[in-house]
């Protein structure tokens, strides 16, 4: 057993911590207020290679593996969940589907730009009638010459309004439906017939634009099929599996920063003539938070290690997302409670963290769906097959 980070990963974390504290923290509040992603900070991140952390250097990636990518997501989400979400959709699920299953030529075509941040990626799965039941997608892709014509809608797409290339799941064989009849396409936003809706107004993650995407007979060349024809659903599910590890890492950052804030405040705030750090209600909340954070940290990095070492990780990945999102919500909620009324103030950072954290229990497969997936794996081992 070896539970230490390599010097490479430690160095990466040091750089990221400093970058996030110096460049991102001062902007995080503004991002929340304006709802506009900060192009300048994205450019800087591109220069540092942060848009391609887990990918091989062959494609211009950083080559830091899943562990390195988890470090990135943890550090980003400590400071600015909106930016972490932009990156999560870009790397963790958007580009990841291409990286996992794309043909070499297609990877060469897009990944270098994606890794450098010159092109922003998005992941287009959800539709108005296909949320948890992703197999219910209806967006059609009809062959026409050496192209496919894509027609339909995606909704809730992170990076929708800023994406240059959207990995889009479409039905290529309606008879088979999603299972066997759906295919992933790399669709460029500049192509005719593609348009993104207005950014949704959300409770949190204001700096991460989410929108509807309209596909009005968009012509997509056949070489832009990602992976195998008809097996797009598998590609996307595999992508989501791995995405859940880094989403877990992001939630870890949120939980960690909540604990730090709570500790700082418990030390300085006095009531009843003593620092509230001397009250057991506060102490126990802190202890519970620390236990939560530590458990999550172990789970997340162990799972990332499984990924990097080519071992099975799917069940653990679901747990990272499930446990992580709930731990983050819980820790931030406790930190807010420890701050009393101050925690509720928008002049202070905690309420933003509280709003931002909530979505992790929902997107990339709701926590109910995670429980179904984990349970179905468990039950399958004892010979029981369940349906969602």
């Amino acid at each position, binding site marked *: 057993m070896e539970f230490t980070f390599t010097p490479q990963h430690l160095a990466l974390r040091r750089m990221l911590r400093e970058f996030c504290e110096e460049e991102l923290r001062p902007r995080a509040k503004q991002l929340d207020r304006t709802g506009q992603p900060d192009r300048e900070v994205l450019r800087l991140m591109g220069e540092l290679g942060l848009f391609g952390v887990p990918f091989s250097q062959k494609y211009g990636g950083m080559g830091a593996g899943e562990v390195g990518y988890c470090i990135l997501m943890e550090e980003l989400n400590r400071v600015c969940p909106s930016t972490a979400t932009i990156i999560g959709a870009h790397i963790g699920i958007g580009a990841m589907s291409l990286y996992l299953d794309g043909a070499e030529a297609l990877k060469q075509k897009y990944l270098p730009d994606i890794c450098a941040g010159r092109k922003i990626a998005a992941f287009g799965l959800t539709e108005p009638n296909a949320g948890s039941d992703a197999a219910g997608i209806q967006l059609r892709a009809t062959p026409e010459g050496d192209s496919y014509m894509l027609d339909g809608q995606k909704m809730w797409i992170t990076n929708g309004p800023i994406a240059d290339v959207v990995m889009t799941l479409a039905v290529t064989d309606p008879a088979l439906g999603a299972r066997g009849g759906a295919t992933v396409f790399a669709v460029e936003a500049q192509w005719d017939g593609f348009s993104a809706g207005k950014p949704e107004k959300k409770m949190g993650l204001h700096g991460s634009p989410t929108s509807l995407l309209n596909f009005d007979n968009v012509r997509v060349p056949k070489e832009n099929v990602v992976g195998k024809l008809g097996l797009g659903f598998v590609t996307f599910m595999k992508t989501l599996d791995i995405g859940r590890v880094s989403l877990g890492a992001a939630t870890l950052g949120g939980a960690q920063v909540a604990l730090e804030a709570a500790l700082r405040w418990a030390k300085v705030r006095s009531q009843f003539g003593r620092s509230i750090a001397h009250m057991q209600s506060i102490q126990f909340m802190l202890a519970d938070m620390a236990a939560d954070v530590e458990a999550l940290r172990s789970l997340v990095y162990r799972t990332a290690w499984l990924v990097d070492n080519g071992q099975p990780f799917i069940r653990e990945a679901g747990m990272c997302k499930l446990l992580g999102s709930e731990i983050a919500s819980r820790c931030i909620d406790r930190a807010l409670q420890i701050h009393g009324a101050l925690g*509720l103030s928008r002049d202070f950072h905690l309420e933003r963290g509280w709003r931002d954290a909530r979505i992790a229990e929902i997107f990339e497969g709701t926590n109910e769906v995670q429980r179904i997936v984990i349970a179905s794996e468990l039950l399958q081992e004892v010979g029981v097959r369940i349906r969602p």
Partner: protein
Amino acid sequence: MDFNLSEEQQMFRDLFRDFAEKEVAPVAEHTDHTEAPPAAVLQKAAAQGFLGAPFPEALGGAAMDQLTYCLLLEALAQQCASTAVTVAVHTSLAGLTLLEAGTAAQKEAYLPRLAGGELGAFALTEPDAGSDTSVLQTRAVLANGGWHFDGVKSWVSNGGTAGLYLVFAATEPGKGPAGLSAFIVEKSAPYLVVGHREPTLGLRGLDVRTLYLEGGPLPEGELLGPLNGGWALAQRAQDRFKLALAAVSLGVAENALALGVRFAVERKQFGTAIAQKGAIQTYLADCATEIESVRHLVHHAAWLADQGQPYARAAAMAKYLGARVAKDTANKMLQVHGGYGFSDEYAISRVYRDSRALKIVGGTDEVQRFLVAQAVLQEAGVAIQP
């Protein structure tokens, strides 16, 4: 034992619900979005007698009992928590404290104004006095026949919209709770400066302010209750406020549950309404059960108050459980909404944000638990300090 509301209470409840649905609901989202206190709604409420609900008729009130007043807050909160808390602060903290401690002249001068739609505020909390308000930095000194103030009050609800403020200040510094007094200050007082509007996570229609008190004079007669008797007044006001907030929490939780049920019935995934799924059903069952237990706590505490029996402990329990259930219900029902729960287009995210403040305003969860534990241990002959 009789668990039924009286006929009169039922009639009022229907009236409140009707008012809330017709007048409050349509502007709830707008109120949250613009963060503007719902002035027009409050005027309509005043016209209905709802801003003096438990005040005597002779003073412009509607002479409702505490239980009926709780039904009002619950109904308002089912549509808009900001409106409900605004009314709760106005009534339980400001109005009823005046009614309890005011001289005949004070009551006659002020209560009809409050019942008529001028808002009341209650300025106790200070930057360094939140859970513990026994030591205040704000000072009031009597000089040349008038009170002169110096201090800062924070988190004053209705702070920018009120016409009347009950202000708590140290009249004998160094004596702690035994040196605090309450004062009635008019909005027009030149030494009352309304400061920063607190931008909040939820309850965005509630006008929460920092107040600066700098100078005087406030006529000597505007002392409320006995000199150095402010602490007891504040305690009783807080007990009333807890009951009121418990009723607000109940309404918030009911609202969340109703939104969740509606969504679960309409939303189809995997070929059926998600309401058909066991996990969703469990959420609904848990929330409904908890809401019912809060309702009974609220009604019981209100009934005790109406019977003239001690109700502080019951109110603390109702406030504590109520806030928790409101937040938990809103949280679960947001989850039922899936991605839509995160959208501003659906009311549940507002309800969820609103619910969070309930665990802090009017005494935090931790403080309520302390109070309940104190009562429990007192019965065992043990005295505890916070």
